[in-house]
């Protein structure tokens, strides 16, 4: 018996109780004077919800930019084919991306990443619509981390070969082929730059997902 205390005990019906699945005598949680957080309806904490929705929209936009970057890199590398107008009996004067395994890996990896990004757009939209959903966000951050590794690996190995093509290496007696194949060199270098742009965008995507994962 509480005499002198005029405590009002709010017994809010949870959804389980309205469905008839939980007993009505489950102890009401009276925690000081803060109102009971027992209703599990879809009313989220508004401040966190708007913030997360903004992050999710920015994430979506970054994803679209990353699709553009990786697609451009793939196409730019994949359509390289330069044939010099002269030839001799012994040497080839044709350069294409599949002459170098690093470039083949680059094209394949960027194609995979473009495909992944297109497939991850629905998940990103789900995160915009439901800002407090943890599952899609966690999946996105995991897959984004793996994809950032793949993209960086492809971009860096192609960059190493492009550097060698531009500068050669005297210690290993490797000639710089860019002096002959200028168009090939240009489109290949542009592809590598596009891929590195995609890497930076992925970095932002991972950090954004980490921000959005916080529980307020």
């Amino acid at each position, binding site marked *: 018996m509480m005499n002198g205390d005029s405590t009002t*005990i709010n017994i809010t019906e949870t959804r389980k109780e309205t469905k008839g699945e939980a007993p009505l005598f489950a*102890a009401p*949680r*009276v*925690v000081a004077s803060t109102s009971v957080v027992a209703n599990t309806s879809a009313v989220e904490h508004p401040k966190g919800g708007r913030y997360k929705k903004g992050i999710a929209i920015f994430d979506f936009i970054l994803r679209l930019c990353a699709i553009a970057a990786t697609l451009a890199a793939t196409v730019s590398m994949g359509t390289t084919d330069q044939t010099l107008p002269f030839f001799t009996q012994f040497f*080839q004067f044709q*350069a294409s991306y599949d*002459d*170098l*395994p*690093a470039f083949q890996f680059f094209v394949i990896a960027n194609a995979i990443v473009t495909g992944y990004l297109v497939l991850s757009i629905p998940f990103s939209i789900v995160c915009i619509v439901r800002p407090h959903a*943890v599952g899609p*966000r*966690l999946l996105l*951050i*995991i897959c984004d*981390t*793996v994809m*950032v*590794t793949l993209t*960086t*690996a*492809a*971009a*860096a*190995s*192609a*960059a*190493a*070969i492009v*550097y*060698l*093509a531009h500068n050669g*290496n005297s*210690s*290993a*007696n*490797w*000639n710089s*082929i860019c002096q002959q194949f200028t168009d090939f060199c240009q489109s290949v270098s542009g592809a590598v730059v596009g891929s590195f742009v995609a*890497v930076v965008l992925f*970095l932002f995507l*991972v*950090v954004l*997902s*980490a*921000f959005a*994962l*916080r*529980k307020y």
Partner: protein
Amino acid sequence: MKASGALELGEAPKGSTPKSVANRGISILDFILRLIAIIGTLGSAIAMGTTDETLPFVTQFNRFRAKYDDLPMFTFFVVANSIVSAYLVLSLALSIFHILRSGAKGSRIILIFFDTAMLVLLTAGASAAAAIVYLAHKGNAKANWFAICQQFNSFCERISGALIGSFGGILVFVLLILLSAVALSRR
């Protein structure tokens, strides 16, 4: 009704719920993984940095000495691995802080950001070196690049082995980021 006893619900003592135990386990696993990554990246940096092979014959025109700084990609590899090792040692402190105080959210986000940046750096260094190691093993007929591994055997073995520790470090970094993300989402 005497509700004072039953009204203690929802106020479980901190530090002993299964959730906080799991969070502490995640932080401890994070710490252990960081130690493994330190060993991997430091080993790679040292293995690549101490390469020096001189072939026993000499002519007037050709070099018969191979060192890691003959190729700028290997220099980048050594530098990147050293930076990542130093970062990991410094981040051990933050990791210990997370073990002691599982509720820190802002520092976890900082940790994820730097972990991702270091992952990118490490992957860039490792794959650039891997591309050159592949070239050193196989050469390239179309570009007239000769496979130097046929002459410099022990140099080649060293540089190939140095890649292993670095790629192990990459794997560990991916796991670290996942762990931090899971820990963030559980709070």
